[in-house]
C-alpha cells in the first residue's frame, strides 16, 4: 500500500466500546484483523448505526485496496473485478478472479444470438470443487443502428442472466440501449469513454449509475486524463482499456502498459490508475481470412498472457471449449490462495462396497489427484479401498521425485489405516508414475506391489487384465 495504513489510524474509526460483538476481545484487536484483511468493517455490527455513518465511510476509504473493486451487473451473477492489493500473488492472495466475457454482435440473426447466449451461459466445467464458467456477455454494436442495438441488448438480456458489457463508442447508441434495452437498472459496463465522446458518455454513466470503461490505446497519459476527468465529474466505477495489441512491438507495448499501470497504482499510489484493467484478446479475430482454429488458439494464448500480467477482465470471441478450457483453468490456478496447500486429508477412503477381496489403491493427497482418482474409481463402478498418502499436497510425479511420496510413509499409512485387517490379500496397486518405488515398498511392507496405469482413466481396463 502506498500510504502506510497504521493500526491506530484504523482503530480511530472504530466505535471503541470494546463490546466484543465482532468476536474480538476489543476494538484494537479487531483493527489488527481489518488491517491484514481477515475481517471487513461489516464484521463490526455497531459501526452500522447511523451515528457512525461518516466514520464507516472514512474507514472504508482508509482500508480500500489500491486497485478499486468495481462491481458489474446485479444480483446473483454480479461480477466483482479489481480490488487488488499486490503485484505478485505470493505477496497476498489475489482477490476477484479475472472476469471472462464473450462477445455477441448485433449483426447476427436473432436466433443465432439466442443460441450463442445460451451456449455461453451453459459453459460449465467442474474442477477441484470449483465450477469454471464464463461470467459476462459483451454485446457489440456492429450495425451502428441504435434501434437494432437496443433490440439486441434486450434480446440478450432475455436470453441469459449474465451481466452485460454494452460496446459502442457512440453515446447515442448506448443511450438508446439504456432507454429501450431493458438493462438500465442492471448496471451493465458501458464500453467505452474516449477522448472524443467523454462529455456525453459521462452524462450517460451518471444518469444511469453504470460502471464505464475508458479506451485510449497505447496512450497512458490520455488514460489518466480521461480518468481524472471522470473522477471530477463524480464517476468512480471505472475499468481501464489501454489497448491490448496482440502483435509484434505493439504487443510488447501493451504488456508494458499493463505492468506500468498496475505498478503505478500499487507502488506509487497513483489514484488515476487504481482501477481494474481489461484486455480484449478478441482483436485477434480482426484479421481477415484466418482459420478459426488458428484465431481461437492465438486468442487463448493472448488471454493467458494478459491474465498473467494483471488483466482483471477479458473480452473474448471464441466459444470453443478447447480454447476456453486452458484459460479458465489458468484463472483457477492464478487465483488459488498461494499460502494454502491444495490438499485433502490423508488416510483411507472406501469406494463403493468393498470386501476382503477388493483391490487396494494408493494415491497422494494433492486435491486434484485425489478427486480425479476417486472419481475415476467411482464412475467405473469399482468397489475398492483407496489409500491417500500425505505427499504434502503434491501430485504423484513431483512427490516421488521430491521424496514426499516415499516407502516409509506408505508403511505408516498401512498401520494408521488398518488396511491389513480389512483385506485378506496382500496386494497394493500403486500409480504408474510411482513405479520406481515398487521394490522398496515391497521390501518394507511385505506386500506385493502392482504398478497401475499412469493415468487413472485407464484403471478399468487395467483391472480386467491384472486383477482376477
Amino acid at each position: 500500500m502506498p500510504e502506510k495504513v497504521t493500526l491506530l489510524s484504523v482503530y480511530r474509526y472504530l466505535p471503541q466500546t470494546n463490546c466484543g460483538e465482532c468476536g474480538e476481545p476489543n476494538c484494537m484487536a479487531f483493527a489488527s484483523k481489518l488491517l491484514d484483511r481477515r475481517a471487513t468493517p461489516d464484521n463490526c455490527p455497531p459501526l452500522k448505526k447511523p451515528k457512525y455513518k461518516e466514520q464507516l465511510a472514512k474507514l472504508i476509504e482508509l482500508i480500500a485496496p489500491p486497485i478499486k473493486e468495481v462491481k458489474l451487473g446485479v444480483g446473483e451473477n454480479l461480477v466483482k473485478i479489481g480490488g487488488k492489493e499486490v503485484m505478485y500473488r505470493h505477496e497476498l492472495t489475489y482477490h476477484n478472479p479475472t472476469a471472462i466475457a464473450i462477445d455477441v454482435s448485433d449483426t447476427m440473426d436473432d436466433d443465432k444470438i439466442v443460441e450463442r447466449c445460451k451456449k455461453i451461459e451453459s459453459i460449465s466445467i467442474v474442477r477441484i470443487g470449483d465450477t469454471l464458467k464464463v461470467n459476462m456477455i459483451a454485446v457489440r454494436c456492429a450495425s451502428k443502428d441504435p434501434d437494432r442495438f437496443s433490440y439486441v441488448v434486450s434480446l440478450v438480456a432475455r436470453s441469459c442472466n449474465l451481466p452485460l458489457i454494452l460496446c459502442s463508442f457512440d453515446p447515442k447508441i448506448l443511450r438508446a440501449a439504456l432507454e429501450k434495452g431493458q438493462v438500465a437498472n442492471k448496471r451493465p459496463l458501458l464500453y467505452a469513454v474516449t477522448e472524443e465522446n467523454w462529455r456525453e458518455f459521462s452524462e450517460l454513466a451518471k444518469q444511469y449509475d453504470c460502471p464505464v470503461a475508458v479506451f485510449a490505446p497505447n496512450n497512458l497519459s490520455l488514460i489518466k486524463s480521461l480518468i481524472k476527468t471522470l473522477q471530477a465529474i463524480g464517476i468512480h466505477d471505472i475499468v481501464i482499456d489501454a489497448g491490448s495489441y496482440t502483435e509484434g512491438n505493439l504487443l510488447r507495448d501493451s504488456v508494458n502498459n499493463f505492468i506500468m499501470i498496475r505498478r503505478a497504482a500499487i507502488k506509487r499510489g497513483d489514484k488515476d490508475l487504481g482501477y481494474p484493467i481489461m484486455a480484449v484478446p478478441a482483436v485477434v479475430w480482426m484479421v481477415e481470412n484466418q482459420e478459426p482454429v488458428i484465431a481461437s488458439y492465438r486468442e487463448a494464448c493472448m488471454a493467458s498472457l494478459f491474465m498473467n500480467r494483471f488483466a482483471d477482465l477479458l473480452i473474448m470471441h471464441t466459444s470453443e471449449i478447447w480454447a476456453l478450457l486452458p484459460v479458465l483453468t489458468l484463472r483457477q490456478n492464478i487465483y488459488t490462495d498461494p499460502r494454502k496447500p491444495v490438499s485433502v486429508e490423508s488416510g483411507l477412503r472406501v469406494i463403493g462396497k468393498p470386501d476382503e477381496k477388493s483391490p487396494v489403491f494408493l494415491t497422494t493427497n494433492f486435491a486434484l489427484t485425489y478427486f480425479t482418482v476417486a472419481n475415476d474409481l467411482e464412475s467405473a463402478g469399482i468397489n475398492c479401498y483407496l489409500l491417500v498418502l500425505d505427499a504434502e499436497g503434491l501430485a504423484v510425479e513431483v512427490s516421488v521425485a521430491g521424496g514426499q511420496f516415499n516407502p516409509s510413509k506408505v508403511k505408516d499409512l498401512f498401520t494408521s489405516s488398518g488396511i491389513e485387517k480389512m483385506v485378506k490379500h496382500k496386494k497394493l496397486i500403486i500409480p504408474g508414475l510411482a513405479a520406481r518405488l515398487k521394490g522398496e515398498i515391497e521390501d518394507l511392507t511385505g506386500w506385493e506391489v502392482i504398478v497401475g496405469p499412469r493415468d487413472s482413466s485407464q484403471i478399468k481396463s487395467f483391472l480386467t487384465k491384472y486383477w482376477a
Partner: protein
Amino acid sequence: MAIFLGDEIEEKEEIKALMKSLAKFIEKLGDLELENVEIRAEELTFIIQPMVGFTAQIPQITQKVEKKIETLLKAEFSPPIETYPGTITEVKIGATRSEGGSRRKVIKIGGEKTMPFYSFEALNPNKPAIAMDIFDMPIELAKSVRQHFEDVMHDPAEWAKRQVEDFGAEIVSLNLISTDPLIKDTSPKEAAKTVENVLQAVDVPLIIGGSGNKAKDPLVLEAAAEVASGERCILNSANIDNDYKRIARAAKQHNHIVVAFTPMDINNQKKLNRLLLDEGLSKEQIIIDPTTAALGYGLDYTLSLMERIKLAGLLGDPDLQMPILASTSNSWGAREAWMKSEEWGPKEYRGPLWETVTTITAMMAGGDLFMLSHPATVRIIKRLIESLYGEVNADQRIQDWITDIGL
C-alpha cells in the same frame, strides 16, 4: 489527510471525546504491543495533529465535486521505473571450436536486470531459449506430439535433427530414460554413446538428462560429461538426495553446466545451489529447476516460486541468481492435454494449447529456458518472444474492434 467530514456538532463532540480517550489510553500504556503490531505514543500525536483546523477545508472539497467540467483535465504519465541491486547470472550454453567444443551455435540465457519483459525499465539481454525433448528409446507420447517424429523415434540422432532442422529447436534435450534399472538398465557407457551420436548429428547445444533414478543418474551423467568434454552441455540434474558431488565434479572437469533440481521448495533450492557452489562450480555453471507443474496441476506453485526466485535474485540474493529451467513439456501429463473427451473438445488442439499456456505462464513468471514437446508450441512461443522483444514491427489497428471483429 481528510478525516471526519461530518459537520454535525454532535459528531464533532464525539470525535473529540474519542481522541481524548485514545490519547489517554496510549499515555497509560506507553508502548503497546498487540498481535505483532507495535504502536508508539509518537505515532498517535502525528495522527492527531492534522485534525486541528480541519473544518475550514470542508467547503472547498464540496465545491470541487460539484464543479462542471468543460475540458479534459490534463495528466501526464511517467513510467514507474525501479532499479534492482542484483542481476541474474548470464549462462552460456554450448561451446564452439575456439572455446573447446564443437557447436556451431551457442545460446546465452539469464543476465536479467528486471522482471521478464518489463522492457520499459530495462531490456533483459537474452531472450528465453527453447529446447525440444528427445529420448534414447521410443516412448509413450500423446499422439499429437508423436506424429511429428514417429518415424525417427528409434534413432535419437535422427530425432535430434528433426527437432533442430524442421522445428527450430535451439537446444536439444536428450533424456536417457532407458538407463533406468526398471526400464532397460542401459549402462552409462552405452548411454554415453548415444550422447556422442546426438552431438555429431546436430550443431546446437545439448541438455543431457538421466532417468530420474537417484542412484544411477550421477553415473550416467558422469559418463556423458566425459564423452561430451568441453561442449558446455547442461547435465540434468543434481538433487539434494543424489550424488550431486559426482555430477558437479564431472561438470567442473569437463566444462559443463549443472541443473539444480528441487521439488517446489525455495529453501532447499537455495541450499542445493550453495552446495553446488561449494563443490567448486562457478555461478555461470548452474541453472535451477524449481519444478514445473502443468497447467491445472500445480502451475500456481510453479509460477509463484519462479516469481519469488527471480525477484529474490534481482534484489541481490546470490543463492538465487541463476537462470531458471522450466520443463513445460510436463504439461502433457495433464489429462486435459491428451485424453479424448466430448466435453473438452478436440484433443488435437487442446493438447498443444495446454503446453503453450503452461509455457506462457512460466515465461511471464521468469523461466529462461523451456523444454518443449510440440512443434506448434515452439513456433508460437518463439514468435511471442520476438514480439515481446519488439523485434517484429506490427501494423495492427484495434480502434474499430467493436465493429470489425466479424461474427
